[in-house]
């Protein structure tokens, strides 16, 4: 006899089975395969004839950690995350506050306008930004020249290429986080602000003591998602610079793509993917831990 609880559990499993099967086949299986691949030297020779495949243990990981190119890519990725991430969150929050302010006219228009870059195809955006960044005919340098600043070769100068990519990425992505912040802001009961106004709190103190703490969960979500997304930066440098000049915009995912799909070093590329996964996991856990500590302190 099957008890009613066992019965319920069985039907639950039966209902879940299709979804679980899909996740297993299209997510866990490929991840597992990639993990196995990262311990082999799978390349075009092995693709042609599996007899030419070697099990190499941790060699891919060792080579990766010894490769100056990987460290360059990792450094660039950290640069992108460390500068682009906070900048993106700050710009989204600023935009959200502006759009959400009672003084703003046509908030719907601004919300849509700021969100527009998010839904525009990146390649089209990149073409336009390449024109903006053009050293001789670009709008940006034209603006700078009016201020008396010498033209900057935005995408060609090794020092400026990454800032240029970050600027474009932030412009392209901040709309999404802005919408989430607006939702968070609208969840804050207006009575709190009214009470603060009666107590004579300045706008800054209202922001500091009401808006920020109550936005906490939204903030955590936005910061985590931005960080995870920014660690995986690929399309912007792929379209704008192909990782140049002198590999200054080569990101870890771009390196992985090049190794995997351009040179077909699947083993090595898989190893890079898992190193990146470990890094993102570590950074996420760290951020969660810091946040939890802060919440207790606050």
């Amino acid at each position, binding site marked *: 006899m099957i008890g009613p609880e066992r019965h319920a559990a069985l039907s639950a499993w039966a209902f879940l089975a299709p979804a679980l099967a899909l996740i297993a086949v299209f997510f866990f299986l490929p991840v597992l395969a990639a993990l196995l691949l990262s311990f082999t*030297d799978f*390349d*075009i*020779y092995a*693709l*042609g*004839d599996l007899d*030419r495949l*070697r099990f190499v243990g941790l060699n891919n990981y060792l*080579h990766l950690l010894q490769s100056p190119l990987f460290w360059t890519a990792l450094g660039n990725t950290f640069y992108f995350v460390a500068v682009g991430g906070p900048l993106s969150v700050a710009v989204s929050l600023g935009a959200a506050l502006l759009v959400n302010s009672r003084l703003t006219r046509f908030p719907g228009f601004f919300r849509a306008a700021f969100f527009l870059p998010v839904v525009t195809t990146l390649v089209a955006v990149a073409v336009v930004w*390449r*024109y903006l960044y*053009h*050293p*001789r*005919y670009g709008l940006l340098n034209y603006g700078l020249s009016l201020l008396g600043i010498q033209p900057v*070769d935005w*995408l*060609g100068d*090794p020092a400026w290429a990454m800032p240029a990519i970050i600027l474009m990425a932030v412009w392209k992505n901040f709309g999404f986080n802005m919408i989430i912040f607006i939702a968070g802001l609208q969840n804050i009961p207006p009575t709190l602000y009214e009470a603060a106004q009666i107590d004579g709190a300045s706008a800054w103190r209202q922001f500091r003591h009401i808006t920020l703490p109550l936005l906490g969960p939204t903030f955590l979500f936005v910061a985590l998602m931005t960080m995870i997304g920014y660690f995986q930066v690929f399309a912007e440098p792929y379209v704008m*610079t*192909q990782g*140049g*000049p*002198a*590999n200054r915009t080569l990101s870890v995912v771009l390196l992985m793509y090049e190794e995997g*799909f*351009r*040179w*077909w070093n699947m083993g090595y590329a898989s190893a890079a993917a898992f190193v990146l996964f470990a890094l993102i996991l570590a950074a996420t856990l760290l951020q969660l831990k810091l946040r939890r500590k802060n919440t207790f302190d606050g």
Partner: protein
Amino acid sequence: MGQEGEQVKALLPEFERRHPQLRVRVQQIPWSAAHEKLLTAYAGDSMPDAFQLGNTWIPEFVALRAIEPLDERLRTWPADALADYFPGILAPNRLDGQTFALPWYVDTRLFFYRADLLASAGFAEAPATWDEWLRAMKALKSANDASRYAILLPINEWQLPVILALQRGATLLRDQNQYGDFQNPLFRQAFSDYLNLFEQGLAPPVSNAQMANLYQEFAKGTFAVYVSGPWNIGEFGRRLPAELQPHWSTAALPTFESQAGVSLAGGASLALSRTSPRREAAWKLLEFLAEPQQQARFYQLTGDLPARQSAWSDPALANNRHAQAFRRQLQQVRATPPIPEWERIANRIAYYAELAVRREMTADAALAALDRDVDRMLEKRRWLLARGVTP
């Protein structure tokens, strides 16, 4: 691939008329994604019956066992048909005595230059040697102001350093292509020839992407010489202003003292997929596209230069004065090492050349690093050869 994929369709009605039982379906892919798409198609077991590929990719697809050798089928060809191909262009299609692909159209690099600027610098004709060209370039540079240069060499390209090395007689790799040979004195010499062009201020240290509109810059005289391939005959004709049309020209690459002025044996070839069940029909298509008349028509459609020399007597091509330098250059072409790793090695050459031009590395350090990187890339090849397996 690219516009060829579009234009080749114009040749196909004739093929289908001759073979009423056959229908050709053309799948068009952009050049930038072609290599990856073909590899993925192979991995996914969905290769086309016949396919176009860059001739430097042939060793890779041979290593994959993806290409059917053509020698059996070529036996039915008249004896002189293969000799009709530019020999240097046919060579990269053959590996270990077997023919794996048929050259379709050719690509090599030579000088596109502003004849008017050169004349005003005192050179009525294009010089034939590097020494004279260097004198001409110096004159061009000094006659110009600081924002003008003699030659544009995009620093993210590997072609010119490799061409100079081949002209100097360097082999690039050594011991059956098992190790890099970039610290060899011949390569080192070519590498410093290349760097000198930047150090003397003759070439601007910029990449391709930074030269947003090189046709405009060429028209303005920002540079007077550009090393490029056949596709730019058409582009220069379309994009340069009309008043400049009589004043640009092409010239075969210059030579060092005694050596030949070789350039690269590039181009696209057509191959049969080894796993295709329709190889017979696909071979008929390859044969059709290899006919001199079809080659000449394809040139008229695309501007791609034919691989068969007899197609060059077609009036459209014989009357194109810019193509004639290519014909001369094509007698003097050499292939890059025929190994699957070549594209990757070329990419590293470009990378270290860029670092050296930017002076982030000395030439010696760059070449040592290049040898080290290339030796690591060739590790699998050494292992396969040591096991007695053909890579």
